[in-house]
């Protein structure tokens, strides 16, 4: 079934089943691999993308629900919040294995866009859905605060 997905500003016409999760459309059909598969049940956040600016777990979002939506992945995010976060991620040496970090940055970018001065509770709430098995959480928190400070 033909589906059109607007990813990072580009329309992609795909002939895939409507129940295909957005994650697999992005990874296998559009061939952008920065968005990761971790759990398939919206439990770990590795697959986080933005849909019309809001963080969404792409692993449980069927492509059929994406008509007319603007989808942004780690490859396409160019907001000032994302840029500040990526710089802070490097400064703080956040990534270890790195597999979850695209999702962490997408969640954090949505947080900062909505709340330029997040406190610890705000960070907990926004980032709780993003598991990091390397437990880089101390640095994730520090880097979000540091990015927020740099944007202020």
């Amino acid at each position, binding site marked *: 079934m033909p589906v059109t997905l607007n990813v990072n500003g580009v329309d992609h016409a795909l002939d895939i089943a409507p129940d295909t999760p957005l994650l697999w459309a992005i990874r296998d059909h559009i061939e952008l691999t*920065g968005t990761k*598969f971790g759990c398939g049940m919206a439990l770990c956040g590795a697959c986080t993308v933005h849909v019309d600016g809001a963080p969404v777990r792409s692993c449980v979002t069927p492509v059929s629900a994406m008509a007319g939506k603007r989808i942004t992945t780690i*490859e396409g995010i160019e907001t000032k919040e994302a840029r500040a976060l990526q710089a802070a991620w490097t400064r703080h040496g956040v990534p270890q294995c790195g597999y979850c970090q695209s999702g962490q940055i997408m969640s954090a970018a949505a947080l900062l866009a909505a709340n330029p001065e997040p406190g610890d509770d705000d960070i907990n709430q926004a980032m709780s859905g993003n598991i*990091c098995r390397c437990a880089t959480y101390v640095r994730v928190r520090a880097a979000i605060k540091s990015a927020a400070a740099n944007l202020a």
Partner: protein
Amino acid sequence: MVAARSVHSTSRRDFLKVVGMAGAGITLAVALPAVAKAANAGATPAAKAAKSFSPNAFIRINPDNSVAVVMKHLEMGQGAYTGLATLVAEELDADWSQLVAESAPADASLYNNLLMGPTQGTGGSTAIANSWEQMRRAGAAAKFMLVAAAASQWDVPVSEIVARKGVLTHERSGRRATYGEMSTLASEQEVPDPQSLELKDAKDFVYIGRPLPRKDTGKNDGTAIFTQDIKLDGMLTAVVLHAPRFGGKVKSVKDRRARDQAGVVDVLQIPSGVAVLATDFWSAKKGRDLLEVEWDETGAFKRSSADIIEEYRALALKPGLAARNDGDANDALTRAARVIEATYEFPFLAHATMEPMNCVVQVNGQSCEIWNGAQLQTGDQAMVASVLGIAQEQVRINTLYAGGSFGRRANPHSDYVAEAAHIAKAKKGTPVKLVWTREDDTRAGYFRPMYVHRIRAALDEAGNPLAWEQRIVGQSILAGTPFEQFAVQNGIDASSVEGASTLPYRIPNLRVELHTVDLGVPVQWWRSVGHTHTAYSTETFVDELAHAAGRDPVEFRMALLKEHPRHQGVLRLAAEKANWGTELPRGRTRGVAVHESFNSFVAQVAEVSLDEKGGFRVERVVCAVDCGIAVNPDVIAAQMESGIGFGLSPLLMSEITLDEGRVVQSNFHDYPVLRIEQMPEIEVHIVPSTEPPTGVGEPGTPPIAPAVANALFAATGKPFHRLPLKLAEISAGQNPLHKS
């Protein structure tokens, strides 16, 4: 995985020493093999060849002035790439910015782990320890040849050339050349004997000891490539239906509906189950959901966790094989006026890496190419060669970043790699990507084994431990693996008892026994291996003894560690930095633990708050580590943070249970792991040292669970002998801090 302690040699006898934990200091005979004969296609970028300078198998200096450091170790998050590059840069006197990490091909003749004998592999927190001299000599050899080239080109004495930050200069004549500019001529110089090169004094280090930024880049913008991200022309994705119980076999398959699924290309029966191959993951998974498989469970494992624990508890009452025997613990305990005892229970644990297991394999005639976050390349080569009936050298491996491993990707049976090879064997010429779902990954076994420990101890009149008897019951990780002949001695798998048989406290009568149980559940090393359970039982029980003696837990330990200055050093530092002994605000409590693993020493003080509803939160951890010379203090701090976060999950929430052989858990809803709001603040202090560097990937994990449990014990008077802790166990009624 295996702990490394001893002398390198490629002989099996010495490898035995390594895994058998004999010997003391680390001395490595360093050879610097020449470059790999043939470039390993996928693993090495094309831009090189012509005028690059490769003084040895670890370094390639390119005319564009970039320096490729060929990484013999997997980067799975622990910072190996950064550490190895630091060692090379130090002696090469390169500029940090010119170094680029490149993954080595699988070739144990060039890239073996010097602490694993003739095996290429990463684990046991050995990456820096085994490379410490080798990588520095590799850098020194390259610099020697660059300097010789400059001296010859400029016709000046070698002694007048200065090499600094990737630039050669001759002050008197004002000559100057970058390493890249000198690379062609350098490659014509004589290769020096690496042992003849003088290495820098620690006081002259410019990179070692500094928090240099990491070399495993591309992880902030989605460009880093993991196995999951590999896409090759014509590649198929395979999803496998495994037996619901370990040891189950396929009896019959009805696959018509699966084959009718759009995108599905083939359905194959393989030894580990039924594989569905499709043009993409989602089609393969939908195809798998349509399979109808009948299983032959004649040989399947059908027991439950509760029943296994009962068996283990019963065994713990009986004598086992002695792993250590000082004095006569049994006699001392028989005579003692008062014996304190505890029985501990530890469940199975899954590694639960963020990237579920996966592997890309392409079989072509008599050769095979693999793309994988390979942790034990030599083992994987041997296994795949045997699956395919080809020569081991014909198995080429492109080692990619691993999205976490914690030991899992160093499977001694190459389980998921072999599975991918079986599928690719049936689809010769076609690249196949095996993808496990989270559920597959959680249920595939190779767990940290279940254990029961029973400890009995007695104090003398002065309140010092007189006797300690510890029995450990559980499966052997190494039995039945290629490591068995080296690591299992007289029936004792060293990895089952490490941390207990090596108890550092001065106790005149000390006996540690092991019951090894044969169970049909696949088990494997899990970040810090035996220390995952021995640190918990020993360090919480020591607190119980201190309590019984009416002594402070830090003072009690210090008095028993007089012959172990490095234990004392980290314990003293952690206690001091945590203001041990000072009053805490109401509702707060502290606990401490100290433990040696992988030749590194770590002490942690955990500060825990108890809330009125009976819950608790780990608020802050002060960690002191002695890992010898601190190659990169920021990576060390990151590994302590990571080890602590990793060790909190099995303390607080994670466990795998079996119900009549079926793994009950499947995904992060029923196998919860630590999330950001549960992460404590962490402060890391590194003990200054001139000892050779030792590991940091694992040693941060063992002390955290006992430190937190000891904090709860201090507050509640209740010891915790079963993991994971259940929040409900610390009910408000038992929390004296909130009794008004």
